């Protein structure tokens, strides 16, 4: 028997939603907490399986405060689940208290599309030695990276100011990829998530030099884990 874990809650809801691909979903009680898990899930690993996990987490979190568990956490029996929860029960209770009933928004700011990444310029191939051209290219790239990071930090501050949320309710990833200037997770109270999303859309549409996408609300994936 194996269990694929989805979320941690204080108690099981009255209605049990189906697990991944229709497999049975079980609540494994572990002291004051418990874990929701699909029993004997079909071996998967596809993108659809990942979104099925998300669907199950959404169903659980819609019924009560919950902490999403990272995708792909498989345990061979209920005792293993109980042992892992028991080892961290105080920390999990505190996290559940803080983020359990809340929703998460994702704000993504993209650099404008162009052939060359913003701030980067190609070193012309001239009659230079290969070593000098290499060093100049490195220097140019480093300067461009620094400029992009400074811009991302400025955008993050503008976003925080506009949203007026607590510092602990916002987590930024600056320049996480060549196309993305900023990827921000924002924690919102369940009843305020849609309004906060509207405000975020308004803010990002007013930012210069980037395109913004606001996604969610979702269960508090980012804030359930370790910062």
């Amino acid at each position, binding site marked *: 028997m*194996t269990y*694929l*874990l989805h979320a*941690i809650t204080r108690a099981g809801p009255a209605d049990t939603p189906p697990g991944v691909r229709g497999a049975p979903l079980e609540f494994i009680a572990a002291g004051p907490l418990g*874990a929701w898990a699909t029993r004997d899930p079909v071996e*998967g*690993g596809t*993108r659809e*399986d*990942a*979104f099925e*996990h*998300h669907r199950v987490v959404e169903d659980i979190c819609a019924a009560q405060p919950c*902490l*999403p*568990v*990272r*995708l*792909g*956490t*498989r*345990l*061979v*029996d209920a005792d*293993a*689940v109980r*042992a*892992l*929860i028991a*080892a*961290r029960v105080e920390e*999990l209770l505190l*996290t559940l208290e803080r983020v359990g009933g809340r929703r*998460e928004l*994702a704000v*993504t700011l*993209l650099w404008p599309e162009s052939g060359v990444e913003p701030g980067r310029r190609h070193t012309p191939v001239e009659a230079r030695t290969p070593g000098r051209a290499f060093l100049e290219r490195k220097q140019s790239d480093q300067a461009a990276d620094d400029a992009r990071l400074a811009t991302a930090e400025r955008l993050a501050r503008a976003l925080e100011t506009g949203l007026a949320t607590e510092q602990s309710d916002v987590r930024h990833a600056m320049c996480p990829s060549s196309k993305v200037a900023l*990827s921000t*997770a924002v924690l919102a109270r369940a009843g305020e998530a849609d309004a906060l999303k509207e405000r975020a859309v308004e803010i990002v549409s007013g930012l210069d030099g980037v*395109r913004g*996408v606001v*996604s969610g609300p*979702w269960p508090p*994936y*980012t804030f*359930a*884990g*370790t910062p």
Partner: protein
Amino acid sequence: MLDDVEEMTLLELTDRLLHRGVVLTGEATISVAGVDLIYLGLNVVLSAVETMNAHKRKAL
């Protein structure tokens, strides 16, 4: 065909599913009679692929 907004939303959600949320298993392993009871499963495989791709990009 996904537009930019849908694609970015899917990427953000996928990133959260794969890399965030409570990590119960960590590096701990519970064993009984020498048999490991914990399987990290999909996230480890996908994370490993992601790490491998990142190294590949750096190497290029």
